């Protein structure tokens, strides 16, 4: 019998008319590395919970190593052999100290002290956290906390690791460390089931299950999955690497890079180029140096269109206490009406602080801020009125939802602006329609009953309902599935097109390519700025960050002498560049620059 055996599994939440899981069947052998993909609400998290006895099965059978999670006695044994890592790092911490938290599992098994100590040491070592063993758990970064969760699971010496969107809330560097750890553990023999909505992460697995509306619609290799036409219907997308290759294959069916790295793309293109035109290599000489210019560093003269200006702003967080630190250290940036500005940088680089200066929530310790032409530090400045026109959406804005019904919560902002009666209803209605939460359907819906994605949209509606001229969005796409992300990006583009100024912070370089202007922050300073092409296609990558995949590939093509200058920021543009190299005139007329919107 297979290690994990699921047959005809059905699950329904109490009181719900529909099944969250219908007729799911699959088997997993020991040592497999499996990814589970699906949109928000497709049932993937429910599936994980059914495997570990955290959700009740309506019908069907589930066996892990022969054990039945619905059987109380066997469940304890099952959990002793299964490690489960959840999405939210801080919500899994049980103890204050790293070592103690790691020991929680073995302590529950009632193991003797020496055994616990041994397991904890080896688990922390495997997770790379041995040096932090005596530190308070809350002081670790999110990525480290997730590794601690893995260590806590490892201390049980499990055969199976279940990861429920475990990377959703950590930044890219943390994600890489985490996934490398998982890969190592799998290589050492652990079975891994990784529920995710990141297509790139799914590529690390050797087998993928796709859930759509509670049904299993695909079970096979990742490469095969991304060839399927139903991808969009399943709310999935292709990783940039595969998308670019696929487009190339439309004209050159033999275009198949050996791997997923940008260098593989370049090698494959070079191979085909040699085959097509052996003489081409000699023409590689005139390497345009245009891309080598340093990113533009000037802030142009102020104009009426400036919605937000920060000039040499410094901000000290928790000034005067032991925990004080400089969140911002001389930041200058501007956002114009009709413009989309992206702030990128690692966690702690100051993006949130910068945005919070944008609606006068924070006041600078030094430097100047001008919001919609006004100085918030001036005497008698009406901050409340200003915040009506410059609206901030904090990170994970759904945490601030407080009314019972969706309509009421969205109405909170406009109510504070003084709106009543029909104008109030109109604002609320149009804000809700914009985020695809139809007013008629969702006005009376309890907030509690919304899915995660819907809650995020409801929170956004609450901010949009202020009808602001300047929008400050702090990581608006964090934790969203591909469909949600696309909607959010489309919304940003629409808001910009309406003449509003939009400033967003993001971890995703791919998202940043859609902006008109990019600021790269590191440790409270702007270390690079310019258009996405200037920032991502320079000879050096932006400090402290990686280039978006397509940009990296584009730069490699240029370095290999295949193109005159790197110009691609997304898959489509990259494919056009590649086709141009192979002598095919591109259909769209030249590689697309940033800001034109990805397909």
């Amino acid at each position, binding site marked *: 019998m297979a290690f994990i055996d699921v047959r005809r599994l059905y699950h329904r939440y109490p009181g719900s008319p529909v099944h969250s899981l219908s007729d799911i069947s699959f088997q997993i052998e020991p040592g497999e590395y499996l990814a589970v993909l699906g949109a928000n609400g497709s049932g993937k998290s429910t599936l994980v919970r059914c495997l*570990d*006895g*955290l959700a009740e099965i309506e019908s069907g059978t589930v066996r892990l190593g022969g054990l039945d999670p619905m059987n109380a006695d066997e469940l304890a044994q099952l*959990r*002793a052999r*299964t490690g*489960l890592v*959840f999405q*939210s790092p*801080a*919500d*899994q911490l*049980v*103890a*204050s*100290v790293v*070592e*103690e938290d790691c*020991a*929680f*599992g*073995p*302590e*529950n*098994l*009632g*193991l*003797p*002290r020496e055994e*616990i*100590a041994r397991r904890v040491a080896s688990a922390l070592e495997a997770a790379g956290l041995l040096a932090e063993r005596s530190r308070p*758990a*809350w002081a670790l970064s999110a990525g480290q906390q997730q590794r601690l969760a893995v260590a806590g*699971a490892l201390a049980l010496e499990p055969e199976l690791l279940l990861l429920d969107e475990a990377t959703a809330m950590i930044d890219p560097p943390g994600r890489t460390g985490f996934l490398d750890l998982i890969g190592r553990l799998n290589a050492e023999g652990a079975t891994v089931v990784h529920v995710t909505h990141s297509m790139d992460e799914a590529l690390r697995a050797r087998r993928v299950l796709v859930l759509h509306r509670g049904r299993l619609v695909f079970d096979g290799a990742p490469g095969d999955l991304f060839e399927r036409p139903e991808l969009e219907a399943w709310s999935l997308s292709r990783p940039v690497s595969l998308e670019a290759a696929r487009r190339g294959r439309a004209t050159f069916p033999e275009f198949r890079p050996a791997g997923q790295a940008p260098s593989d793309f370049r090698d494959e293109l070079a191979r085909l180029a040699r085959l097509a035109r052996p003489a081409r290599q000699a023409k590689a000489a005139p390497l345009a140096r245009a891309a080598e210019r340093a990113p533009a560093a000037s802030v142009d003269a102020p104009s009426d269109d400036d919605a937000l200006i920060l000039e040499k702003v410094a901000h000290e*967080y*928790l000034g005067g*206490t032991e*925990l004080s630190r400089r969140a911002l250290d001389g930041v200058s940036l501007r956002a114009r009406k009709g413009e989309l500005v992206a702030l990128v940088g690692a966690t702690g680089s100051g993006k949130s602080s910068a945005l919070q200066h944008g*609606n006068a*929530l924070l*006041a600078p310790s030094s430097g100047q801020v001008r919001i919609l032409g006004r100085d918030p530090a001036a005497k008698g400045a009406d901050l*409340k009125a200003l*915040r*009506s026109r410059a*609206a*901030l*959406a*904090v*990170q994970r*804005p759904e*945490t*601030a*939802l*407080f009314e019972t019904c969706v309509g009421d919560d969205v109405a*909170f*902002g406009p109510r*504070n602006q003084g709106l009543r009666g029909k104008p109030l209803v109109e604002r609320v209605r149009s804000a809700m329609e914009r985020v695809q939460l139809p007013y008629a359907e969702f006005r009376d819906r309890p907030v509690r009953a919304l899915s995660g994605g819907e809650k995020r949209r409801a*929170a956004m509606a609450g*901010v949009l309902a*202020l009808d602001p001229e300047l929008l400050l969005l702090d990581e608006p796409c964090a934790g969203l599935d591909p469909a949600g992300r696309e909607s959010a990006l489309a919304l940003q583009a629409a808001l910009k097109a309406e003449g509003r100024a939009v400033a967003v912070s993001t971890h995703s370089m791919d998202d940043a390519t859609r902006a008109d202007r990019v600021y790269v922050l590191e440790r409270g300073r702007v270390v690079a700025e310019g258009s996405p092409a200037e920032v991502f296609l320079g000879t050096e990558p932006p400090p402290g960050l990686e280039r978006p995949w397509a940009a990296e590939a584009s730069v490699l093509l240029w370095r290999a002498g295949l193109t005159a200058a790197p110009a691609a920021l997304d898959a489509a543009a990259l494919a056009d560049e590649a086709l141009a190299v192979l002598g095919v005139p591109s259909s769209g007329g030249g590689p697309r620059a940033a800001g034109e919107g990805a397909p």
Partner: protein
Amino acid sequence: MKDLEFFRNATLGQYVDSRSRVHALAPLTKYLGLLALAVPALASRTAYAALAVMALGLLVALAAKVRPAFLLRGLKPALPALALIVALQALLSWPGDASAVLLRLGPIDVTLGELANSARIAARLAALMVTLGLFTATASESQIVHGVEDILAPLSRLGIPAHRLALVVGIAFRFIPILAGEAELIVKAQASRGADFGSGTRNPLRRVKAWLPVLVPLMLRALERSEALVEAMEARGYAGGLRSRLATYPVGPREKALRAGLVLFTLVSAILVSMAPAPFGT
């Protein structure tokens, strides 16, 4: 705009890991030490007694390699309140006070008795603050929680689940900084939507309503996180039952003697201090 930085206030005292012999004591011993200082301080009837306890506490601080100045600094923010308390006590008179009148401020008499009383209250508070400051400086968060477990352990024979209560305390400790972060986020989000937290009204119920947008999501988030934590704990095999513990605090015969000594000291000093004649019939 009020100070949004909740982390400033979200701790109950600072742990200073100076690796002294006091720090190396077991949590239960530290709790006994706390009692040994707190009980006489509370029972003292004169300012002198309370100040003596405080001096004793500062001496222990020296042994614990915690600078007395550090502990005394904690008194600073409380000085205005202390002054207020002293002043109020001095102004309230009670029947039976037969001591000499020192001052007459209009209709109010300030007697020696009142002065002694207020001095005592102030000294008591100061002694308590130093004691508690010393305790939190020498016992880390997890030691405090383990101490709770050790203290309650005998009660488990009576059916009171000591380890469950200790877990409750541990979870509570661990959540406070998290709540600080959430509160900051929520306040910022609501302020960004125009909330003014009731600054414009005196109606108490209106004021409370204006704080609902912060209180409600804070508690809702707390409940949501509880759900997640319950799953995480169950997945790691916790079901409310008995479990072992990684941390141990081996107690040698010297420490056992110290414990007995502390208990004795607590009893004796409490009795002595409460028997001391109260000045001026207070």
